[in-house]
Each structure stands twice: as structure tokens, then as C-alpha cells.
């Protein structure tokens, strides 16, 4: 059977990506220049079973450490977000041991001494700033650790907000503390015990539980579909230009 090579009118758009060299764990690979580190590693043949998660920059699984030639500095980034550069010399740090102390959260009250007790190594901090420098999310780690040393849990919670628990800070810490676990404790304490509660929400929940809306809900539940649809379509809407003094005609549930 003869085959013709003619008729290759099918236009194949060929995307020529420029290949650049990168070093993954010391081994040289040539990868397309527009890829993220994660895609580049997969291009190079690595198959992820660790060190990869959301692929969206928020889970902290793919923290990567890299260096550039002629530069002494340590650079970090998330593999799923960072685009490769020529001669990048990288490795991933999918896990760094950092123990989280166990505590009974409901027994805590949000006092600074509780943080001191659970993580006394907090006081070993020497303000070297290695943690802040290495954070791929630009969290000011030194600042929140400092805040905690002086007992300001709220400030620590706010400063550490963007932390994705990747563990790079703990890997570089001179004082050997698990910064991100301490930061998480601060955020939990702040949220549960220090942030003011919404009093009007409490009141509303109490009203609901007391059956204030029971009658109205029962009425709606008893309707057939058509009546329900009609009631919904004819409901009174607050006009877009209504001022603070507007009240609905049906004011029984206010």
C-alpha cells in the first residue's frame, strides 16, 4: 500500500519555545523559558507525589529554594508560581520538621503567657531576620515574632495573615523555633478569644432560636409551588435609593 507524504497541507502551528538551562538538585536540564518551576520539573520528567498541592500559590507544599550564578543570596519562591530563569539552581523543600505543641484550645484564653508556655523557644529569637528574608509570601516573620515576645497577639495575627505554612522560616531559624506554628497559634487565639464578637449576630440567633420567625417560615412551608413563586415575585424590595429611614410595609419581623 502506497502512502503519500503529499497533502501535508494541514498547517501545524509549531510553537518554538526557547529552551533555557536550569539545575534541579544539581542536575542540568533544558526547559522552555516560560514555564513555572513546577511545570519545568514535570517537563524534565519529574513526577510529583510530594511537593505539589494546589498549584495555585496558597497551600505551601511547593516551597522552592534556589540560587543564581554570581550571586551569594538565597532566593525562594513557590514552584507553582515562580517562572524559571536561566541558570537557576534549585531544589524543593517539601517538608521541614517543625513540631507543633499539642494544646487543648478550648482551655486557652488568649493570654500571651499561653504562647510563652507552649513555645518557650520564642525567646531564643535573635532578630537575625533570616525568616523574613526566606518567606515566599513576603510575610514579615521577624515582626510577628517580635510582637509575640512583647505579648501582642493581635498584631502577630495580623502580620502573619498571609502565611501558608510552607516551613521555610523554620528551616532557616537560628533559634530553632517553628515560627509558622507559633503564628498559627496567635491567629487562632486572636480569632477565637481576642476579636470582638458580633453582638447583633448573637441577638439575631437568639431571636431565631426563640421562634420569632417560626410562624412566617411555617406559612411559607405550607404554600404550594405556584403560590410560593407568586409570593416571591411580588415581594417588597428595598428601593436602591432608599435612605436610612425606609421601612417595609410588612414590619412584623423587624
Amino acid at each position: 500500500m502506497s502512502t503519500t507524504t503529499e497533502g501535508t497541507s494541514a498547517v501545524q502551528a509549531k510553537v518554538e519555545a526557547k529552551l533555557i538551562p536550569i539545575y534541579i538538585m544539581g542536575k542540568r536540564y533544558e526547559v522552555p523559558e516560560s514555564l513555572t518551576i513546577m511545570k519545568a520539573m514535570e517537563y524534565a520528567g519529574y513526577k510529583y507525589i510530594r511537593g505539589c498541592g494546589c498549584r495555585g500559590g496558597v497551600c505551601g507544599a511547593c516551597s522552592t529554594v534556589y540560587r543564581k550564578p554570581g550571586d551569594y543570596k538565597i532566593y525562594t519562591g513557590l514552584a507553582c508560581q515562580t517562572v524559571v530563569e536561566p541558570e537557576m539552581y534549585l531544589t524543593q523543600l517539601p517538608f521541614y520538621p517543625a513540631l507543633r505543641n499539642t494544646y487543648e484550645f478550648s482551655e486557652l484564653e488568649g493570654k500571651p503567657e499561653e504562647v510563652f508556655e507552649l513555645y518557650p523557644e520564642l525567646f531564643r529569637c535573635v532578630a537575625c531576620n533570616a525568616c523574613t528574608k526566606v518567606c515566599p509570601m513576603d510575610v514579615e516573620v521577624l515582626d510577628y515574632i517580635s510582637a509575640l515576645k512583647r505579648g501582642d497577639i493581635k498584631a502577630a495575627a495580623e502580620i502573619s495573615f498571609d502565611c501558608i505554612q510552607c516551613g521555610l522560616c523554620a528551616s532557616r531559624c537560628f533559634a530553632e523555633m517553628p515560627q509558622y506554628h507559633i503564628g498559627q497559634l496567635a491567629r487562632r487565639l486572636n480569632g477565637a478569644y481576642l476579636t470582638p464578637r458580633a453582638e447583633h449576630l448573637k441577638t439575631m440567633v437568639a431571636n431565631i432560636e426563640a421562634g420569632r420567625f417560626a410562624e412566617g417560615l411555617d406559612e411559607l412551608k405550607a404554600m404550594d409551588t405556584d403560590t410560593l413563586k407568586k409570593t416571591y415575585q411580588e415581594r417588597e424590595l428595598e428601593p436602591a435609593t432608599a435612605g436610612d429611614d425606609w421601612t417595609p410595609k410588612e414590619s412584623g419581623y423587624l
Partner: protein
Amino acid sequence: MSISYYPGCTLKTKAKNLELSALAAMAELGIEVEELPRWNCCGAVYSLADDDLIHIIAPVRDLIRVRERGHDTVITLCSMCYNTLARANNLMKNDEEKRYTINMFMDEEPDYAGELRVVHLLDYLRDDYGWDKLKEKIKVPLNGLTVGPYYGCTLLRPKEVALDRPDNPTVFGEFMTALGAKVVDFPMATECCGSYQVLGNPDAALKVSYDILTDAGKHDIEALALTCPLCDYNLGRRQNLMRDKFEGAPEIPVYYFTQLLAIALGLSPEVCHFELNRENALGLLKSKNFIQEVVA
């Protein structure tokens, strides 16, 4: 002209009584201070190893923060912080090689060369404000209160940062005299309270503190005044423990110098937060009629 105020970690919690009384007193005296909006723990002790620079980073970083605010002076209340910041400042001023290395290491911060002045409130009052000016502001002279000013270590040693001569200092006594109190300089006023050994060898620290307190008691001192939260812990908070372990440990109320200053300036006892002092602290001042009871 406002100066930077460096609090230190303990002043926001356990030593709130030192900070709040000081801020109220300084406001009353017209001393404008601005707390550094961003600061880190200075380390409390100065690193004494010649090849160790990492422990100098913390206080230097704070000094850079002061300069970022455009101030040329930083004032502290805690004498341990004073000592650490002042010595780090001197190092950056005088040691060219270490200055270079530290600035190179802190590549995320601007360079620092020891341009600032580090003061403690006591020497600021003596040198910049003046005892005479202070005397004029006193509304409730502490007449009849026998005070033993306790210097401790860090205000006087080493010589490069000393507020006064280490063997016979007078600055704290002059301060208390300006407040109208009767000053008794007792021999152990410059003896170490045990400092951080309360952690490593608590019994040893308890004993030296007991010796100091006993000496103060022998000189009929009614109140001990001090400037350091760790001294306050060793000499004040641990008094009950002293009584358990040693014979004849005296019961002497312990105050921060700024609490006595605030009362002498006629400020309300609320700014002094005496609830953080020993139980008898407020009582003694009331018995001397220094506290005006506000009739609602």
C-alpha cells in the same frame, strides 16, 4: 523636638506599670517621645564574645529603626535595654571591622555607623532636662518617704555606658531628692540582684536578692526604687519566696522610679498600675498622704 522611645518586650505586659507611669510622667514634664512604630526585642544582654556578631544584630536593627524615624536620640526605661542598645551603638561607632561585617550581613537594611545617642530616662532628666526644672514641676513632694535607690548593674557597668561612677553613683539619689524624698544610699545598692540566674540557678539569685533586701532593711529604708523589670522580679516579686527560705527577710515595697515620679507630679495613681507591684506598694504611699483621694 521629639525623641524615639524604645520600650522593650517586658514593658508591654509584666512591666506595664513602668511604661504607663513613665509615659504619663513624661507627658506632664513636656518631654515629647514617640514610641518606635516598628521594633524588635533588643536581646536584653549584650553579647560578650568577641567573634559573635549575630547577637549584636537585634539592637542595631532597633537603632536603624530610630534613624528611619528621623530622630537622633532614643530613650529607654528598662536599664537592661539601655545597656544593650548603648553598647551596640558604641560598637558600631568605634569598631570599623565589625561595623562593616554587620552592615554587610544586614543587607536588607540601610547601613548604620553609631550616629545616634542612646539615653536612659534618668540621665536624660539629669543632663537634658535638669533637676532644677524637675523640682519646679513637683506637686506632691515625697517628704517623709525614706527611699533606697537601687541601681543594679546595667546602669553603671561597664564604664563605657555608665550613667555615673560605678562605685559611688549619685544620679538616682539626686533624682529621688528632686522628688522630695529622703534618700538613703545603702552599700548594696549597686550589687547585682542575680539577673538571669533566676532561670539558671534560682536559689543563688534568691540569696543575693535576699542579701540586698536585708541590707536595705538594715538602713531603715521604707521603699526601694528601681529601673529594671528583672530587678523588680528578683527583689520584689520574689520577696514571699525569700521569707519562706531565709530568716528575717524584710518586707519592703518596691517601686519603679517612674511610678514615684508620677505620684510626685501629682498624677493619678491609676497611671501607675500599682496592681502589678507588691500588695503594700499603694498602701505605703497612701499612708504618707501622697495619693489624693478623688472625691467623686
